[in-house]
């Protein structure tokens, strides 16, 4: 097992540049919050597009599962992404 400095390692939604897309990998948030985000479409394995932001850059707007959702940067930085789709075992 590899050690990494930030919890879980890897890139987060907060680093995704506007116009770019990635696969959502993992939500590192308390149960309540991650459930709410999952209800809005932030399910692991889903494609998320960074669609824009409020004037000033925060909150950011993400396009996920057909809708536009605004999230603060600090929330987005807890959503880990990957460039590759998730494998079957990771999905379940």
């Amino acid at each position, binding site marked *: 097992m590899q050690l990494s400095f930030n919890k879980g390692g890897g890139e987060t939604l907060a680093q995704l540049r506007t116009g770019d897309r990635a696969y959502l990998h993992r939500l590192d*948030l308390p149960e*309540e*919050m991650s*459930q*709410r*985000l*999952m*209800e*809005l*479409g932030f*399910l*692991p*394995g889903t494609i998320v597009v960074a669609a*824009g*932001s*409020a*004037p*000033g850059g*925060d*909150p950011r*707007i993400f396009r996920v*599962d*057909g*809708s*536009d*959702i*605004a*999230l*603060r940067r*600090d*929330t987005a930085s807890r959503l880990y992404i990957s460039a590759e789709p998730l494998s079957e075992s990771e*999905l*379940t």
Partner: protein
Amino acid sequence: MSDSGSCHGAAPQTVNRKAGHYIALVGPPNAGKSTLFNRLTGLRQKVANFPGVTVEHHVGRVRDEKGRDLFVVDLPGIYSMTPRSEDEKVTHDVLVGANASLGRPDAIILILDSTNLQRHLVLAAPVLALGMPTLVVLNMADDLAARGGSVDPAALAKEIGAPVALISASTGEGVERVTHFLRGTGARPISPEPKFVFPILQTLPARRRWAGRVGLQAGYTAPAPPEWTRRLDRVFLHPVAGPLIFLIVVLGVFQGIFTGAQPMMDGVEHLITWSGGLLGSYLPEGVFRSLLVEGVWGGVGSVVVFLPQILLLFLFIGILEDSGYLARAAVIADRTMERVGLQGKAFIPLLSAYACAVPAIMATRTIEDKRDRLATVLIAPFMTCSARLPIYTLLIAAFVPNTPLLGQFLGLQAAVLLGLYVLGFVAAVGTALLLRSSVLRHAKTMFVMELPPYRRPSVQTLLLRLLDRAVIFLQRAGTVILLVSVGLWILAHLPYENGKPPAIEQSIAGRIGRAVEPVILPLGFNWKIGIGLITSLAAREVIVGTLGTIYGIENAEKDSPPLIESLRKDLTPGGAYALMIFFAFAMQCFSTVAIVRRELGSWAWPAAQFAYMGFLAYFGALVTNQMWLAFR
């Protein structure tokens, strides 16, 4: 805020289970629930209280073909059957039959947005699994077709084992299928049909996979992205243009309220003066005529004049909300709100508090975090509600010249009004900061906001909301303000001296006013304003009616001059500005005190809030008047 509750005295009704079947209307936020509800029930709707629960929602009546009544209950929007906010809990409890007094609904109408079908079908899974007769309504059919998407309702119905209707609530297309379903539920005794066994899906990912599969089987083609929405968002959320447009929208609303409503207000005023005069000329001179003309017409009439202005404000907020702009405004405001320890979601209740604090405080139920919600409830009454407009407008018209500041766009009068709105906002922000650094200190919370596509607001929905407001306002004018006016007239005519009413200073009302005068004299208020401050503890606009009655009695002998003229003679500019400041801060509203008590479940919070706001009001007014005296 779309389910705007009743502001003040609208008599709550309860759903009578014995009177007929009832059908629950549920769906996620932004699926067009209220639009469909208004289509189905039109004017046959009422604001209702669920017995035992502190939530008000709309109940509408539909007649079935045998003439029996069916009740449609518009429930708060939900994203899932796992309740996370107060609002969602209500819907959840009603659907699972945990609301003892209302019982389980006889049927469910589940409304989903067809332009985002697969995500919305995730909610269909747990709702259909309840096993109740359910009609699945796919809304926004016109939008779906226009953007090149399609779905086969019959195939979907086969997949989910429930009837499906593809409709457009805003154009009315296909709504007859919903009506047909409603009639069916009343015509036959309802028993769940156990033929179709719905799979129980425990996890969200499992539900989403199911929704994707079902959508595919139903031949669902997702529509092209909403191009117009994206184009508009590039402008409305632009780093420079975005905040600028935000500011222009806000300024435009204020200027609109002031200038747009003026002709209508003049019309209403003429009508009241004319009818009062007519009434006076038909009645014999005496106590009764005086009571009717000075007490009732003078008191109630001076408040009714403000109806156009208040409706215009509700219209503007309604348009902003229904078009989808308000969600963007919340996103723009979030960073600023975060700095004062609130969040963007609180922006919407706070904006609706500009219309009325009562529905605003109810709208805070959508805020999941308890402390965020508490803070929002406590600062909401600082936002300049429409009940402050009458006294603001009156004082501004009497004491502020209308010098143009920015050409046609902004006059001094509108600028002063705007300043008062800003003042209320600043007080709210300061209070939020105070709360955050003391009793409500806590870690950051999450802000999540869905940005729905921009839509043209439904005229019917807007008009019904205005009608709601007009009825509530007039009801209040006909009850609270009428009672206060008549009571005041009586107190101003007693005790009789030598068979004649006393001069107003010597009357009971005058004595009460003069008793409080020493306390308020440093603020620049005389005893007449003192009476107004006492009567307006019930509701802010009552002060205008009170002054109307007092000046009416005072000038009964002469042709009574307009209220504005009397005020100019009676108040210094310093006192007038102090009075505006007083009303900006004071919590002069029984309804707000009652709703805060109800929502927070204790008298301690509203009592502390009342004392705090009263303290600010007194010292704010004191400083204003003393500064005027020092620098005039």
